[in-house]
């Protein structure tokens, strides 16, 4: 029987792209308890609504996170549109969803690469990031940026995607599908990967529900919730949408869910690209939100549900802007998943929630 001791994990740790600190109470290489601590990169972005007007803030909103940049600008714009009662043209809604799904693809491939890196499979990591590059190239061609796009505005989008470009989207995505299947085969059927992830960091469906977990982390514990089911914007026009679920509840299941969400996103893009209506891509937005007007919005980011709240005060400056990001919902689940695991598995479990600490702290 060993002595109880506390191992500090992070904020600087090779597996963590961003700073989060964990106090691991360890006995005999087994984690008894994990206490997460955040607050290393608080940037106070929400307060900036007082000095940037609602049009300018969109460029701040998309800097909340480098990976879900598009999602944040879209979520913010939708919130302001609700606040001011703006009806967005259908084509703009479709374009937003196409870009958003594209950013989900790049986020999930990025995550798969990071996971491969965490369990020590360098070649797999390189192959994943090589595929992601193709997706980033599509972004570069259509928005002009690779990470920060600045293409959404309140009332619509700034750039259109023409028919030939949409066809290129589909051919590029079809082109990576084949290689993607080979990569997934390595993730899901290779025994070394399976032994490293199966049965690790189990969260029961009840726990997942009670801890309000969101996104692929929750769906891997059989929580049937995906904001895309609600059918906001162009999601409502999809012929069919079923969240991808798994009953295994472990690290392997989380990998499985994310791996399956990429082909799903590709299918969504294909369907919307085939049905995209012609017309305007933006409507002019004039005036300011009313005094005490309030609006809420939810959006499925690659990491899960993100909630937005905005309150107007009669001027172009919002009174209040709040976001609740997916990782802040999932940190509690992570602490539970870490209980009883091996010290060597901590990095794998931390990574499988796909933590985005910059989002969480804004």
């Amino acid at each position, binding site marked *: 029987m060993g002595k109880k001791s506390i191992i500090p994990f992070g904020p600087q740790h090779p597996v963590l792209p961003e700073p989060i600190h964990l106090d691991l109470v360890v006995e005999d290489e087994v984690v008894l308890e994990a206490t997460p601590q955040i607050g290393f990169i608080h940037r106070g972005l929400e307060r900036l609504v*007082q*000095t*940037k*007007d609602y*049009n*300018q*803030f969109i*460029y*701040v909103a998309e800097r909340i996170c480098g990976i879900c940049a598009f999602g944040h600008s879209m979520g913010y714009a939708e919130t302001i549109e609700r606040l001011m009662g703006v009806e967005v043209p259908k084509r703009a809604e479709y374009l937003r969803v196409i870009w958003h799904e594209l950013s989900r693809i790049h986020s999930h491939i990025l995550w798969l690469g990071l996971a491969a890196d965490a369990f020590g499979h360098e*070649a*797999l990591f390189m*192959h994943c990031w*090589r595929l992601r*590059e193709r997706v980033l190239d599509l972004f*570069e*061609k*259509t*928005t*002009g*940026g690779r990470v*920060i796009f*600045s293409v959404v*505005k309140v009332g619509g989008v*700034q*750039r259109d995607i023409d028919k030939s470009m949409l066809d290129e989207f589909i051919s590029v995505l079809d082109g990576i599908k084949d*290689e993607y299947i*080979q*990569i997934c*085969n*390595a993730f899901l*059927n*290779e*025994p*070394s990967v*399976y032994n490293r992830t199966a049965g690790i960091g189990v969260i029961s469906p009840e726990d997942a529900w009670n801890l309000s977990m969101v996104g692929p982390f929750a769906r891997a514990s059989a929580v049937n919730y995906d904001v895309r089911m609600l059918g906001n914007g162009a999601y409502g026009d999809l012929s069919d949408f079923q969240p991808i679920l798994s009953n295994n509840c472990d690290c392997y299941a989380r990998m499985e869910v994310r791996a399956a969400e990429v082909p799903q996103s590709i299918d969504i893009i294909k369907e919307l690209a085939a049905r995209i209506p012609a017309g305007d891509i933006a409507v002019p937005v004039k005036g*300011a939100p009313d005094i005490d007007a309030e609006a809420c919005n939810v959006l499925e980011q690659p990491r899960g549900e993100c909630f937005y709240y905005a309150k107007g005060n009669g*001027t*172009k*400056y919002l009174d209040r802007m709040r976001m609740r990001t997916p990782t802040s919902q999932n940190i509690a689940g992570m602490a539970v998943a870490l209980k009883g695991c091996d010290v060597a598995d901590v990095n794998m479990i931390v990574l499988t929630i796909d933590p985005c600490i910059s989002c969480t702290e804004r």
Partner: protein
Amino acid sequence: MGVFKLGKMTFGSLFKKPETVLYPIETKPQPAGLKGHIAIDVETCILCGMCDRSCATNCITVNKQENYWEIDRFQCVQCGYCITVCPKKCLSMDPNYAPASTVHKADRFDVPTQDAAPAKKAAEKADAPQPAAASAEDVEKTSEAVDSALEGKIALMDPEKAEKVRAALAARNA
């Protein structure tokens, strides 16, 4: 389940062209819509200052007294908002990145003085018959209306900016 699932792909990579390019000898082609840097067509700019007021990072300075338009490339985040607000559409996004620099210096563009154009307009006006109704009283009324409209706009700005605009107005009226 079997081992070496990635074998085929990894083996194939041995014979493929490398994915990366030999930067800086070789560069990747730039797409047309790339966000490189903001370019200005000084001929059409009227120094209205809309871009200055709407830039979220305050990197544009428009000086009407000295007739120049200035941008701090270190601060610009290539969001393109200034392009959408410019009434003369004289700003554009150039797909080439601004060259690297070791000194922090704003790029200044001298805007040709607009005197030539207004002078011509004034001359045309002088030729045209003066409208009889343009009495001094009316002029005062319209300027009052303009002032109140401006006040309304200033009230919507953030305090810092409002202060700046007020100072600029006072300088103009003086």
